[in-house]
């Protein structure tokens, strides 16, 4: 048995989650602060990857990041770097499909708290940056955690778009979902089951750990009892 998919999946989902978590929060924060016409439209565009079947998203990514695509062409010209068929492509796929989950959760969690508490921190001389990290962020945490969990789970389970842009190349772009697909495809049900159980264990452990860590470090200050 080759364990590459295990580490590859963790790496790809991990990197994608970190990027989505940060960008999702930043974007939600910016959009929640500024009101401009068409804001709702921008927000709806961000939901697009959730509405389309992942294969179609992958197809779109292939066009954008492919050799002749606007971004793919640029990357090739500038850095001689090709995204298609690399694990970077898988990271991009995971980012795109899980972004809406983080964005929605973050936007909701920044909406519902007492702004006066932030003001109190400001009067005490805390910079906006410090206020965000010490007040806004912990008070929004339950929603952010929900987004984090959804993002990681979605990134880990991503299959359709990944297959399209990263291809299924054993040892190079073979994440667990692709390994499951391939095992089923070649009639190898034991291997498929092995990988299904693996991904469930990875997902569970990560989510349990996130919940536990958050309960220990953050939630006990904000929620009742």
């Amino acid at each position, binding site marked *: 048995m080759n364990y590459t998919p295990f580490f590859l999946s963790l790496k790809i989902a991990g990197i994608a989650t970190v990027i989505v978590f940060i960008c999702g929060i930043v974007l939600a924060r910016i959009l929640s602060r500024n009101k401009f016409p068409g804001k709702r439209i921008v927000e709806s565009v961000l939901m697009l990857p959730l509405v389309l079947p992942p294969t179609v998203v992958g*197809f779109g990514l*292939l*066009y954008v990041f*492919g*050799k*002749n*695509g606007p971004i*793919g062409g640029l990357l090739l010209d500038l850095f001689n770097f*090709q995204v*298609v*068929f690399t694990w970077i492509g898988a990271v991009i796929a995971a980012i795109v499909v899980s972004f809406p989950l983080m964005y929605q959760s973050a936007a909701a969690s920044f909406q519902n708290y007492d702004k006066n508490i932030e003001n109190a921190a400001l009067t005490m001389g805390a910079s906006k940056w410090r206020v965000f990290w010490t007040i806004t962020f912990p008070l929004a945490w339950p929603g952010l955690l929900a987004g984090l969990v959804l993002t990681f789970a979605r990134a880990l389970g991503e299959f359709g778009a990944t*297959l*399209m842009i990263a*291809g*299924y*190349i*054993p*040892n*190079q772009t073979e994440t667990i979902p692709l390994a499951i697909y*391939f095992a*089923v*495809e*070649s*009639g*190898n049900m034991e291997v498929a089951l092995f990988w299904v159980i693996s991904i469930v264990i990875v997902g569970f452990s990560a989510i349990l750990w996130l919940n536990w860590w958050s309960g220990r470090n953050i939630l006990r200050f904000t929620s009742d009892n």
Partner: protein
Amino acid sequence: SNQDSQEPVNKKELLISSAASLSNVMTELVDTFEEKNPTITISLNFGGSGKLAQQIQQGAPVDVFLSADQKWMDMLDENQLIVSESRVEFAENELVLVGSGENDIKGYSVQDIDFNRFDQIAIGNPDSVPAGSYAKEVLDSLGIWENIQEKLIYAKDVQQVLTYVESQNTDIGFVYESDLYSSGINKITTIDQDWYSPIVYPAAIMATSNAFTEAESFISFLKTDQAQAILQNHGFYN
């Protein structure tokens, strides 16, 4: 320090996109090929033939394409993405009818089977799955295509047909002979080749490949007796 490496210095990489239905046999073929050509390392990319063709169209750095069907190879050919002269047909397959549970029609010829007795029949979507379009040909030739429309469940690939039949959600389904080698499914009958056009697997070298010689040697390997024997072992006959 030892400057001399054990490995040949100029190890060439070859990326082959192969139809998913060839996955089992390809692993074995590649092993054999690499043994015989130690200077070449092969990476395999699997997927539905259509997906693979679209990846190639978008600049995936593929050297060799093995398709399950002529249609997509033709499309690449028209777009001048393959080296036309390198195109060969290296394998053939047969269509079979599989069923769930015990069947009293085992071994019947397809024209003797009364398809009306089945509730549901799984076939690949004729528009996108080669196995499905061959199945459609058969049912058309039998003159029952129109009559059994509401019994048909279209699948996105042959694997899904197998799943439906194995889980006994459909009574029968149309798949390839080679698919039986990787599943314990119950074959009812092999369908006589007269009922549908030949199922052939084309291979070609990509126009953008910069490992042309290595690609060429792989394609000629496919036609060797050794490779053909392996293909036959997996249900592809030639």
